[in-house]
């Protein structure tokens, strides 16, 4: 798919089929994430956790009554180690945006998630099961899977000032 088409087509998908994505597609999505720009080239300060275990996903789903990852069959957590420059958030977002665009390009549904991260950080058991290296903190999560609907992209407006 052309880049601008994928960028425009990307939408937050909030319903998934009970069918796992292929390993080949997962690999493409992860590779796209790895090509994101990371401040000062510190790729070693980033970590990706892929969760596809049904029991573990259910445990996360049960953290609250609300749908926090819309029962996506794959949950990808992006974690980062802040080197003191506070770039962990922007770095993670670039990884996330690449992955959600790659998913869109592959015809998969995806959604950029924040709420689930807050809940995971507050739950010592689940955080421990992520088995993150010392200093790494989860920043954002991507829900990804097959979807049966066509989703209409929305038009968003961001205000622009020109200084010419």
């Amino acid at each position, binding site marked *: *798919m*052309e*880049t*601008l*088409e*994928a*960028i*425009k087509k*990307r939408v*937050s998908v909030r319903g998934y089929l009970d069918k796992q994505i292929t390993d080949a597609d997962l690999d*493409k999505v*992860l590779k*796209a*994430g*790895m*090509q*994101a*720009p*990371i401040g000062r080239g510190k*790729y*070693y300060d*980033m*970590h*990706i*956790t*892929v969760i*596809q*275990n049904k029991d*573990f996903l259910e445990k996360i789903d049960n953290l609250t009554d609300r749908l926090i990852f819309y029962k996506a069959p794959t949950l990808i957590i992006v974690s980062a180690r802040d080197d003191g420059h*506070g*770039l*962990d*958030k*922007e*770095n*993670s*977002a*670039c990884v*996330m*945006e*690449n992955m959600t*665009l*790659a998913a*869109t*390009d592959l015809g998969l549904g995806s959604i*950029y998630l*924040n709420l689930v991260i807050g809940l995971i950080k507050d739950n010592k058991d689940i955080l421990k*099961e992520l088995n993150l290296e010392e200093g790494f903190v989860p*920043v*954002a999560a991507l829900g990804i899977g097959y979807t049966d609907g066509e989703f209409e*992209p929305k038009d*968003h*407006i*961001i*205000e*622009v*000032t*020109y*200084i*010419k």
Partner: protein
Amino acid sequence: METRDVIKKRNSIRKFKDETINKDELSKLLEAAECASVGHGYYDKMHLTVVQNKEVFDKFNEVIKEDTGKENSLFYNAPTLIVMSTNIEEDLLAGQCVGTMGENMLLMATDLNLGCVYIDTFLESIKKDENALKLLDLPEGFRPIAAIAVGYMDMPSVPKNHKIEVNYI
């Protein structure tokens, strides 16, 4: 260009020709930014500033030099800067919303065969200088977080293969 090729091709370009990108290229970059994933749909809490003014660039370079002692332009004398600002108070969300807008613009620029780089260090100096910050003419309550420097490449584009560690559960 195919999305997957663009994602692989994107890399940081730090040397630009003097010529400014054209209107159509600029408008595609801004369109890409507007399509980014922004938490809670806070698109009205994001702001973009396109800077293409030599006097503003000169002032920025002067302020950066005073602040850091560095002679080199920290925005690589790019002929266009797109500054990303927000009034989202929570840093965790603010940084992420800026990051996705930035990445969309970088990918769009790569697709258009433009050179680009994600930058933020120079803003530290600008934020410290009230007069320099005023030149951005930001809406009340907004603060700049990062910027994209973009232009026609004056150095070869050499994509690199990066690795981020992954574990599977």
